[in-house]
């Protein structure tokens, strides 16, 4: 999955998430067209019920735009399968409520819930992790996570853009 955030000079914004699922989707490559095919039918597994022709599978993708009463804006979204929800939510919490700058809000290590268990990203605060475990939270080891968030914030007239270093991204502006 890949996310792109855009803010134009007229104040219009786009938050878009695109996916072929997993790395390399279904791993089926069309030699004649050069296209790699998705494996999105696998996303029906989360709902565990029958599928109908033409139906779109459930997804964690949440390309979002936040607009404050003062006109400030946050254009944000993420990639990384089920981790998208946790990664995007925590980046929003960090920016909106904890007052982090955009880079810190996105790059701060996150935690993720799977059932009644919590998974901690590498470099997550040991102090908080052990505090949560003392409260009885059950931990599950994160095996393969690729949570990546891209965001743009506008405060007053200044625009800040950040592409997640987890995927070695870099933003551009003018």
């Amino acid at each position: 999955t890949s996310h792109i955030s855009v803010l134009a000079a007229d104040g219009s914004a786009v938050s878009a998430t695109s996916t072929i699922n997993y790395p390399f989707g279904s791993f089926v490559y069309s030699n004649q067209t050069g296209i790699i095919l998705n494996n999105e039918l696998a996303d029906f597994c989360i709902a565990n019920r029958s599928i109908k022709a033409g139906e779109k599978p459930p997804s964690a993708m949440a390309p979002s735009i936040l607009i404050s009463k003062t006109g400030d804006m946050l254009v944000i979204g993420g990639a990384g399968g089920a981790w998208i929800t946790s990664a995007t939510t925590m980046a929003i919490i960090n920016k909106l409520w904890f007052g982090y700058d955009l880079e810190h809000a996105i790059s701060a290590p996150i935690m993720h819930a799977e059932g009644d268990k919590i998974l901690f990203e590498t470099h997550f605060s040991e102090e908080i992790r052990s505090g949560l475990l003392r409260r009885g939270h059950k931990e599950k080891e994160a095996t393969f996570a690729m949570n990546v968030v891209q965001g743009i914030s506008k405060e007053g007239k200044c625009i800040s853009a950040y592409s997640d270093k987890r995927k070695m991204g870099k933003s551009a502006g003018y």
Partner: protein
Amino acid sequence: MSRGRICCLVLLTLGVLAVVVALVVILTRPTCAPQHYLHGAVAADTETCSAIGRDILKSGGTAVDAAIAGLICTSVMNPQSSGLGGGVTFTIYNASTGTVEVINARETAPRVFPHNLVSGCAAPYLIGPRWIAVPGELRGYEEAHKRHGRLPWKALFEPTIKLLSKPLVISPVLDKMIHHPYFSDLGKRLCPLICDGGRFLKRGETFRWPVLQRTLTAIAESGAAAFYEGQIGKALVEDIRKAGSSISLEDLKEYKADVSPALNITLNNHTTVFSPGPPMGGAVLMFILKILEDYKLHEASLANPRERVETYHLIAEALKFGNMLKPLMSDPAFSEAQVTVRTMLSDKITKLARSRIDDKGDHPLNHYNLFESIYTSRYKSKG
């Protein structure tokens, strides 16, 4: 006073005025910290694609033009993540109308698929032709461009077509993916693209992708119809049917992107969050934020170790409640998901979630299943 002195005085006054105006302009001109911008910006997952998006903005393109060009680029720079064989969802804020809409071009289930497909969900890797859904990516670009684009369709493809005229380098991220133990055996299927003989290419090595360049050129010239109704679609269906997929040309022809208003909630009576409704995850994200809104989290919530643990305990519990709702986010065209979303974002449900958050983090799984308890209580109330 002589005419000369008056003239000097007027000139001096004008000079002083000019200096004052210049100072006012300079001092009141908005200044931003380094790495901040004044006009527009793009955050894609590679520097190359962010720059392509930014150049589209600078050349008069809209935010939608830039997003499409950036995503086309991403399909080449990070082909493991997205591409024409996938799907896309746009959330678009139009500053001139103040409206926010969602274009949902997520893939769909084809007319024919294995009847026992879901029984295969327990397999370690859900890959292979049986899991391919009908791609929606290009119909999504087409709809977004039709509604919000300014530059010609072709102009959005040109930077990436140019990129494909040169060798592409295996980036550290791509290298990590193709050599990851999870995927290394599976990756052999992609050998026509990223192998040298039978050996995977390594970081820094280069490959060419002329077939995709031809495909993108045809789509740039003829539009999305070349994919969904034309020669590209025919060739694609031929290839994937050979691989074992049951997707047909009719499936491609019937594909349509959905346009709808964005789901929204206002937090703390100050910030409105816009995000896509089901089958996307926007409602779950909003639900988590709505649970936490009442705790009035702020900078001081992280002031000391005790506060930090308490704050992250609340977040952890909210994430668990949100996680339980994900399976309910089904396609509203085939379910009652809109009703479910109205219920889950109601004050009653978020209040119920908060009432279940205490000091402990060791509650059993059913503690987080809010909907089960609502339906149970409805059932009980009916005797």
